[in-house]
Each structure stands twice: as structure tokens, then as C-alpha cells.
């Protein structure tokens, strides 16, 4: 099979270049996909799985753009300088680049925002001001506050504190963030303006602006999606959004010790993208 052509470049933006990897479609284009990733080690661990999926999507005719947010991956800036609003803005930046590309194709083709984990929260906040995209969500985080708490727990875990000390440490970390300080967690400096934005983020969609959503999860048993996601999906259906939900068995590739991949998720996503076209 012909290998999709790729371009690696820095897209100029406020604060410095955002690293981008564009994978061009093989054959007549079907549409464009923007990947919006997770942060910290989840971004690192999932990189190969995402790259494999991006090439599979491109081979099936999709233009795929992977853009690292400010202070993440190869992009400019330090993680500790990043805030939530800048990351939400970066979703718009990537979308804008793909919209320009779609326009050059001269046909009305769909644009898909593809989120992984906390990337789905960024997509939700982006859609609040710029609705209209279709969504492919991998293992979406539904509640930013819970997600932030789980991340902050890594600090206690890394210091191998006992249960009671861990609780005290968490309280201290949260108080520091409340006071506007930056805290270092698992090698990442977390700024108060990042924490507060993430804490307020929820996976919600503006009414009327999202025609369809496809959710793909990894589960130990496979089959049905997690309860929180299932509830959310049902609510969206009631609001008239077309929702596909499925789970595949395999390792949690975004946080396994070794690099893992789940080919079933990529295959399911290719079918999901076909449904998103219609």
C-alpha cells in the first residue's frame, strides 16, 4: 500500500510555534480530522497508537493533523507556562489550518475533531464558541475536576506517602493552586490557570451545533462503554445528536508502562469516520 505523505512543521502562534504533523490523504479526500490529545505522560504513551491511527485514517482518504498544544510535546513554551484557555485556543488554531486545507479542495467535506482523554474536554470548550464539527472521541474524560484530582494524586504516589499523608499532601497541593501558585506534579509544573480551567471543564455539547458523535473506548472485557459515557451518550441522543458508542478489549494504551496499541480501536474508528461523513 502507498504510504501517506506527511509534513512536519511549526505553526506560528502566540507564544511560539506549535508542532504539527500533517498526514495527507491517499486518493480522493473524504474530509479532515484534527487530533486533540491528552497532556503529560498520557500524551507520550499514546503517541504511537495515535500515529498508527493517523496513518490508517489518511490511507482511507482523510487529511489528519496532529497539533501539540502550547507547552506540550514539541511545541514552544514550558508546560508550566500553559493555561487551559491557551490550549482551547490551540484547538481553534488547528481547526483553522484544516479548514483552509478543506477550502483548497474546493468541495464541501466534513471536519472531524478527534479527542483522546482530556482532549475531549478541550474540544467541548472549543465547541462552546465554534460549534459545527463532528466528533470522534477516544476514551473521553467527562469530568475535568475528577481528572485533575487523579493527576494531582501522582504527586503523593511519587513520594510514596502513606494514605493519611497522601491526603494531607493533596490538600496542600490544592490549597497552593487555589492561592494561584504553581505546583510540580510528576515532573510537570502545573499552573493555577491550567488547573482552574481543567477543573471547570465538562464534556458537554452546545445544543444544535453537533450533528454526530462517535465514541470508542478500551475496556478490559470489551463490549459496552463506561457508565458515565453511556449516560452522556443517551442524553445526547435525546437531544437529537447521532451517537455511536462502542468498546474494544485491550490495554489502556495512554498509561501503560510499555508502549501498547489496540488495533481494534483503529478499525472501529475507520468505520466510525465513515458514519460521520453521512
Amino acid at each position: 500500500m502507498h504510504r501517506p505523505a506527511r509534513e512536519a512543521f511549526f505553526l506560528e502562534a502566540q507564544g511560539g510555534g506549535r508542532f504539527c504533523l500533517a498526514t495527507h490523504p491517499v486518493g480522493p479526500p473524504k474530509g479532515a480530522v484534527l487530533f486533540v490529545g491528552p497532556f503529560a505522560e498520557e500524551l507520550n504513551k499514546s503517541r504511537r497508537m495515535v500515529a498508527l491511527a493517523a496513518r490508517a485514517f489518511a490511507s482511507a482518504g482523510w487529511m489528519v493533523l496532529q497539533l501539540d498544544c502550547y507547552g506540550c510535546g514539541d511545541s514552544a513554551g514550558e508546560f508550566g507556562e500553559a493555561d487551559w484557555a491557551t490550549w482551547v485556543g490551540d484547538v481553534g488554531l488547528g481547526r483553522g489550518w484544516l479548514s483552509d486545507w478543506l477550502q483548497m479542495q474546493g468541495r464541501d467535506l466534513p471536519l472531524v475533531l478527534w479527542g483522546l482523554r482530556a482532549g475531549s474536554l478541550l474540544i467541548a470548550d472549543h465547541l462552546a464558541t465554534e460549534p459545527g464539527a463532528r466528533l470522534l472521541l477516544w476514551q473521553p474524560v467527562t469530568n475535568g475536576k475528577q481528572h485533575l484530582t487523579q493527576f494531582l494524586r501522582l504527586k503523593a504516589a511519587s513520594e510514596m506517602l502513606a494514605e493519611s499523608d497522601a491526603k494531607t499532601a493533596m490538600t496542600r497541593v490544592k490549597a497552593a493552586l487555589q492561592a494561584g501558585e504553581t505546583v510540580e506534579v510528576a515532573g510537570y509544573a502545573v499552573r493555577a490557570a491550567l488547573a482552574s480551567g481543567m477543573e471547570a471543564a465538562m464534556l458537554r455539547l452546545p445544543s444544535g451545533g453537533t450533528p454526530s458523535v462517535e465514541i470508542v473506548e478500551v475496556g478490559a472485557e470489551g463490549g459496552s462503554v463506561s457508565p458515565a459515557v453511556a449516560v452522556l451518550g443517551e442524553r445526547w441522543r435525546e437531544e437529537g445528536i447521532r451517537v455511536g458508542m462502542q468498546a474494544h478489549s485491550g490495554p489502556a494504551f495512554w498509561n501503560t508502562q510499555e508502549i501498547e496499541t489496540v488495533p481494534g480501536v483503529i478499525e472501529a474508528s475507520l468505520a466510525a469516520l465513515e458514519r460521520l461523513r453521512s
Partner: protein
Amino acid sequence: MTFRELALLFECGGDELVGVLSLPEREGGEVGVLVVVGGPQYRVGSHRQFVLLARHLAANGIPCMRFDYRGMGDATGEQRDFEQVQDDIRCAVDTMMERIPGLRGVVLWGLCDGASASCFYARQDDRVLGTMLLNPWVRTAATEARTYLTHYYWQRLRDPAFWKKLLGGGVLVGKALGGLLGTARKAGAARQGAGQDPVQSLPARMASGLASAGKPYRVVLSGRDYVAREFEQVAAGKPWAALEAIRDAVRLDEADHTFSTAAWRAEVARVTAEWVESMGREGAR
């Protein structure tokens, strides 16, 4: 001094690798640094260590490249381990030499099994001027058992809580003893095996790589890291002792395996820049 960064795609064995080059604003750095990624990481590294290192070096006049070898991160191709990345390193060195006018050569900078891969590669390429080895990965079943024996069991025996637990019935005595004896057997096999089959063992192959390369190297060891402890054990025995690899080792006593704080990363970056600059000066003489 400021720097700029270039995103690159380059070929290796029919596959496509992705790299990022951090360049000093002003040209003229004669010695560059090539980060050989180790462990289950892609080119940015745990908590972005390799990105931040590259920027620090470039800001100090030293060009630096990080890249994904085949099967990792954004590179195409099959996944492979550190024993099979020699061609990938060569392609990356080629790319750096092509892209940076006036570059005399590179220092390979490898953490964990990236250090092991660098030891293998150093002798194969005249453009490699030296290697920086951080918490080098020397693990075999035997070295692991020996380190565990020394550091884990010895510490447990000295820990009053262990004896309290033991006397109070909180430790299964048979299980604890069985574990200790099994580990001791493996460690003993390591000592006997050391002289028998140097061609097969990972630490011996690394040592012979470094010795035959005859190029300067610098070791950096973390205080809170079993991988570093295993390396120290290996470095004290044959054939490593002759290399005196740990005599001038830089030690970060509080640091963990991946240098997971800004302060430890900064210290590693500083030590790297200093050593590479000294090589540049020697080369100029």
C-alpha cells in the same frame, strides 16, 4: 542566546523518522548532541526532558536533535528494542551532519537503554565524538537479582519494622526466606557466569563497545534508581573496571531514574552543556 527549531522527516531503511532540530541562533557550534531516546518514550521524553534539554543546549550554542526511531512515536515501521536501533542512529547522525554546516561531529546522549544503544554505536562511526550515559541500562536476570539482594534485602534486614513484623507474625517467614534464597542463587549464577560468556552479556558488550571506540564518555547516575545501582555493581567488576566509568561519574543523589523535577533536569542540562563545550575546546586545540 536564542534558538530556533526545525521539524524534520528523514528516511531510514524505507521507513520515515520524525525529528526536531534545535539550533543556536548563531551558527558555529562544532559539536552537536544527538539524543538517543531510551525506555518506552518518544522524542520529547518523560516530562519533556529531551525537549527542554535540546532548548537549553541550543540556547548555549550547542545544536541538538531528538528523533523517534523506527516503530516509536511518530516514526513508521515495526516496534524494536534498543538492540536494533543502530541503523536509526546512523540515519539521524547523517541528517544532523547534512543539516548543520560546520558540524564536526556529535555526542550521543542516552538515558537508560538509550545509553546502552549508544555504547554499541560509538565505535561504528567516526562522527561520534563521545557519549553521555545517564543511568545506563545493564540489566540481565543476574544483575537484577544481585542489586535486589544488596539493596532490598539488606535494607529490609536493617529495618526495625521488618523485625517487628516478623516477630508479630506479619511476615511469612518461609516465603521471605524462599525469596531471599532464590535471589541469592540467581546472583551467584551471575558471579560465576561473568567470566564464562562475556559475548552474550549486555554489560560486557557495552563495555567492549566503549573500550574499542576509545572516545570520551561521561556517566551520570541518579541516587534513587535501581538501574543506576545495577550499573554501579557492573562497573565495579570485569570488564568495566578498566574503563573507570564511574570514577568521574556525576551523581545526583536525590534524583530518580528519569530526573523528574525541574531542578534535576536543569542540573543534567548544565552538566551536559559543560561537558560538550569542553569537548569543543579540546577539538579546537
